[in-house]
């Protein structure tokens, strides 16, 4: 136990302390929230959310130091929990004041698109930073592909659950289907252009790992074009 680096011990202690504080504050928030039903306004979830947002860089920094400057995803879960609590508070306030969502409020499908884009940026960005500049073996490439798939699935499931909790799920109608088709068309164009680029790279005999990054990047970019254009059509065009 004492052989562990001191920074790791301090980090673990702070981490546990942070978790306990977080747990107590959330419990207190819920307690006051239930009281508040009879007594008026209480921004419990907002306070908890802001607290967790403040904790995020702290946890990531601890992990970054503790893991020898390798990983910094530790604040991610806390960041997600903080944002969820803040979103919950805004829904609670809207319910209390009886305000209907305005015409500019993000709809269920738009929120889902934003979540997917954020997940792509987060996961591909993380793997891009992690793998860039290192010699890429077939095992590392396979591990990255499996990791990307699993992380994307987990993040998207969590995001969909959170969105469903705070937005009214809607069945797709004719406009949704048209926008989806237009977005897919744009994504296909980006993908096709990217494939041509990769073919040119292959002809130029670029190294294997550069080709791998290029294909991964093009796939992520095509997805971002598809989702981004769908969001654009939803908000400003159709």
């Amino acid at each position, binding site marked *: 136990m004492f052989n562990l680096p001191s920074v790791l011990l301090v980090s673990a202690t702070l981490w546990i302390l942070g978790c306990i504080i977080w747990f107590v504050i959330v419990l207190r928030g819920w307690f006051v929230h239930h009281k508040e039903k009879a007594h008026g306004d209480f921004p419990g979830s907002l306070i908890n959310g802001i607290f967790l947002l403040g904790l995020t860089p702290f946890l990531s920094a601890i992990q970054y130091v503790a893991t020898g400057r390798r990983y910094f995803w530790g604040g991610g879960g806390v960041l997600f929990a903080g944002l969820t609590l803040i979103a919950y508070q805004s829904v609670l306030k809207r319910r209390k004041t009886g305000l209907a969502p305005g*015409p500019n409020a993000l709809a269920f499908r738009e929120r889902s698109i934003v979540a997917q884009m954020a997940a792509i940026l987060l996961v591909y960005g993380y793997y891009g930073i992690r793998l860039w500049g290192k010699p890429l073996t077939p095992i590392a490439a396979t591990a990255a592909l499996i990791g990307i798939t699993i992380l994307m699935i987990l993040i998207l499931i969590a995001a969909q659950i959170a969105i469903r909790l705070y937005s009214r799920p809607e069945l797709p109608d*004719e406009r949704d289907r048209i926008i989806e088709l237009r977005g897919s068309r744009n994504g296909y164009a980006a993908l096709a252009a990217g494939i041509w680029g990769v073919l040119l790279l292959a002809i130029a005999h670029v190294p294997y790992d550069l080709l791998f990054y290029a294909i991964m990047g093009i796939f992520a970019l095509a997805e971002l074009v598809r989702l981004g254009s769908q969001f654009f059509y939803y908000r400003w065009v159709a």
Partner: protein
Amino acid sequence: MKLPVPGTRVRNIIRTLRFQNGEMTQQQLADSVGLTRQTIIAIEQGRYSPSLEAAFKIARVFRVPLEQVFQYEEQPLRGRKAPAP
């Protein structure tokens, strides 16, 4: 950021009809015709032209003829000739 809305040449008076029909909300109209609230907003703002089927459904909710709800703007688009009447 405010972007220019391309819009369509189909105009409508859905907003007026909603208020004349007991201040019907966009959500109520959306539920009764099987569209989403966002689509109703887009139609009212002239950003989206509904399908013929959806247009008939909307007219039927207000119990008025289709051409009373939707009107086609005859003004030709810039650089194009208007179709012969």
